[in-house]
């Protein structure tokens, strides 16, 4: 059983269905498919991170994204990422770039003219140089979710929406999980993958497992549609903000506002001025665009900004795929792969994934990611 019908749960079902009888797989979602973070995300996919774990897993994820977009037929655009940097950021990013290159991600530091070729209307006075990640891509979460759902149903995987799991149930020895309680009654299950985003922490708590997952409110807006002005997703590292032109032409803008973890994600009156001011400095046309919609969501953060993967010590049959710290959509395929391997083979199949198990927090083996944006 998979708890959570977001990108992680759907891709886990996909990779499981390749190996076991699909009719034995049940995916439950508390609301509609994609309703948590997946359909609120900024659509970017990149491998330019600052740790071996993230770079290796994300690079594999990109390979799966390409393969699956051909196989299942969904949109994927290799627009790249451009990290706009100030003088004081350059030394750190030169080091990051060397790390990327070591693991086969061909990023490099580029000058303003290079950026101006990719993004002709940009104000070159606003940055000193940039890091270019040509491997990065943009997808369409809506289409991915529907394509996967339809494919999974056709194989015989059962998907139950509007079914909220309220707790996990252990057997009488309190060692193995044997069922879940939902708003529609109890459902027995041998193996349970908890990929429930913001709901994950409480579900694990119901079987005495404490996971350091904290939802952090995030803000994002989209403008009306315009003709394509540039392909890459741009990051202003100084303000921790990004802009990307979506598949349909709207500009998606995320910008960091100071927020507390576990606070409620509510619209803030200061968000739109904040986001508009940042990108009006980079683009003289930005003040003229029409803002269509502003929404909020969560990054489910862990102390080291890496996900929590794999089985849980002491509770047999429970597997975690959560705490993506803002990178759940892009990690989706590789999350599905390693989680399915753990469930079927007892091994994730990618060595770096083992470093991301829950036990790392009690053992003090944290792996810090520095490049979290938005």
């Amino acid at each position: 059983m998979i708890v959570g019908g977001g990108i992680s749960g759907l891709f886990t079902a996909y990779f499981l269905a390749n190996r076991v009888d699909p009719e034995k797989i049940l995916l439950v979602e508390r609301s509609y498919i994609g309703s948590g973070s997946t359909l609120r995300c900024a659509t970017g996919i990149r491998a330019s991170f600052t740790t071996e774990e993230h770079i290796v897993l994300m690079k594999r994820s990109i390979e799966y994204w390409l393969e699956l977009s051909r196989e299942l037929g969904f949109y994927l655009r290799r627009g790249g990422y451009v990290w706009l940097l100030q003088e004081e950021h350059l030394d750190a990013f030169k080091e990051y770039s060397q790390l990327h290159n070591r693991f086969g991600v061909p990023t490099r530091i580029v000058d303003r003219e290079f950026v101006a070729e990719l993004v002709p209307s940009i104000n070159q006075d606003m940055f000193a140089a940039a890091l270019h990640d040509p491997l990065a891509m943009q997808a369409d979460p809506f289409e991915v979710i529907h394509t996967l759902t339809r494919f999974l149903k056709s194989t015989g995987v059962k998907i139950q929406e509007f079914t909220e799991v309220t707790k996990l149930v252990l057997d009488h020895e309190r060692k193995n999980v044997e069922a879940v309680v939902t708003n529609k009654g109890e459902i027995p299950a041998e193996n349970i993958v908890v990929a429930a985003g913001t709901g994950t922490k409480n579900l694990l708590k119901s079987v005495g497992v404490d996971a350091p997952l904290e939802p952090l409110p995030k803000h994002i807006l989209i403008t009306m549609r315009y003709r394509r002005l540039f392909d890459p997703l741009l990051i202003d590292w100084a303000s921790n903000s990004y802009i990307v032109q979506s598949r349909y032409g709207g500009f998606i803008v995320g910008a960091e506002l100071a927020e507390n973890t576990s606070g409620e994600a509510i619209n803030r009156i200061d968000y739109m001025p904040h986001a508009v001011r940042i990108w009006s400095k980079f683009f003289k046309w930005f003040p003229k665009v029409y803002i269509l919609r502003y929404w909020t969501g969560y990054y489910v953060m862990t102390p080291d900004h890496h996900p929590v993967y794999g089985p849980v010590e002491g509770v047999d049959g429970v597997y975690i795929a959560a705490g993506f710290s803002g990178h759940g959509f892009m990690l989706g395929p590789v999350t599905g792969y390693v989680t399915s391997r753990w469930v079927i083979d007892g091994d994730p199949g990618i060595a770096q994934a083992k470093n991301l198990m829950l036990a790392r927090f009690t053992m003090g083996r944290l792996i810090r990611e520095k490049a979290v944006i938005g």
Partner: protein
Amino acid sequence: MGGEMKKIRMCREHPAIVCRCEDITLEDIEKAIEAGCNNVQCVKTMLRLSMGPCQGRTCIPLIVRILARRLGKNPEELHVPSSRPPLVPLQAELFCR
């Protein structure tokens, strides 16, 4: 236009438009329902209904009625998508005066 929508919209005979902003007809919606959509959010995310400049002011009441009728439900039972600011499209510079 995406693969998902292309498949659904391959053949459009019915002229009744439900969502003007995103150019979605009654026939598109009936095909989405046939493809398994049984809630407003499913139709919205599959067809992009209500995601254009009017933000669903015209099409959400229509889709609620169409779905309620087709599924034999009371319209009140269907969850409608959240309204998001700024409700009508506003020029970015208005926020920086």
